[in-house]
């Protein structure tokens, strides 16, 4: 094993350990803020895995979009909805945990079995375009993937308008049910919840 391969192995092992342990922290930690920052670490390590696969453009896109946009959005959402609340206990939480863990472990064993037993039809490394991948991605996006590329822009526009419409605070001059004037200061704090609990 040459030193380059050894370095690649060490990088891969460190990055995958960070990915797996960080993901476990995201789902297991009590504090949601720690989870959000660990999620950023997981995204960065996934970008490192992409660099190991000779994909510098996708790694940069991963860092920009996931760490720069999605993670910041999640942290803003945590800031907006962060309220200490005592969760109602569920009576069958233990059996639910056990069943879901069993399902996940079964799925994991099935996936790993497929990964290891299938004979993958690997192509020879001589064909690899390596660092030219950014050029090839640009060619794809403007020739055979042109329609999905344009549809993606429409999708982003729709998502932007939809997010604005959903998250906008509706300012009403009077309450719908009672007809009384609404206190414009803190609508969601002063009024009763619109959808009351069924039980």
């Amino acid at each position, binding site marked *: 094993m040459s030193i380059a391969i050894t370095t690649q192995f060490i990088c891969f092992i460190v990055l995958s350990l960070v990915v797996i342990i960080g993901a476990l922290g995201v789902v297991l930690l009590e504090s949601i803020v720690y989870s959000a920052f660990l999620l950023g670490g997981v995204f960065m390590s996934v970008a490192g895995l992409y660099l190991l696969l000779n994909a510098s453009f996708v790694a940069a896109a991963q860092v920009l979009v996931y760490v720069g946009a999605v993670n910041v959005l999640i942290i803003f959402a945590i800031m907006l909805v962060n309220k200490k609340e005592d969760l109602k206990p569920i009576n069958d939480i233990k059996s639910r945990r056990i069943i879901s863990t069993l399902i996940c472990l079964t799925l994991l064993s099935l996936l790993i079995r497929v990964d290891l037993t299938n004979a993958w039809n690997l192509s020879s490394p001589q064909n690899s*375009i390596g660092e030219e991948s950014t050029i090839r991605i640009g060619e794809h996006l403007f020739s055979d993937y042109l329609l999905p590329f344009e549809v993606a822009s429409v999708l982003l526009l729709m998502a932007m308008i939809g997010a604005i419409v959903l*998250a906008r605070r509706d300012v009403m001059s009077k309450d719908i049910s009672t007809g009384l004037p609404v206190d414009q200061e803190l609508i969601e704090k002063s009024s009763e919840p619109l959808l009351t609990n069924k039980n």
Partner: protein
Amino acid sequence: MNLESIPLQAFLIVSSALFCIGIWGLLNSRNAVRVLMSIELMLNAVNINLMAFSSYIDNNLIQGQVFTIFVITVAAAEAAVGLAILLSLYRNRVTVDMESFNLLKW
């Protein structure tokens, strides 16, 4: 052990583990923000799979990388809309507990 490069199976196993952790978090989280984070973890697992296949099996045309870019786009749109839905839910219910969103339960 004498290997020329990292085997494809190593990437596939990492992405399988990440996907299963995401599913576990999706099933067991009670905070709605954590559910969205689990969905992002699962999308990242799929992306690792696509990137590994594009590098090991289709390393000349790299269509997997193009697919990964589309998945990243859709994931960003999904996160924005999901968090907007979460905000309006919080405005109506004043909680983010998944167990209290039971209006569609029968």
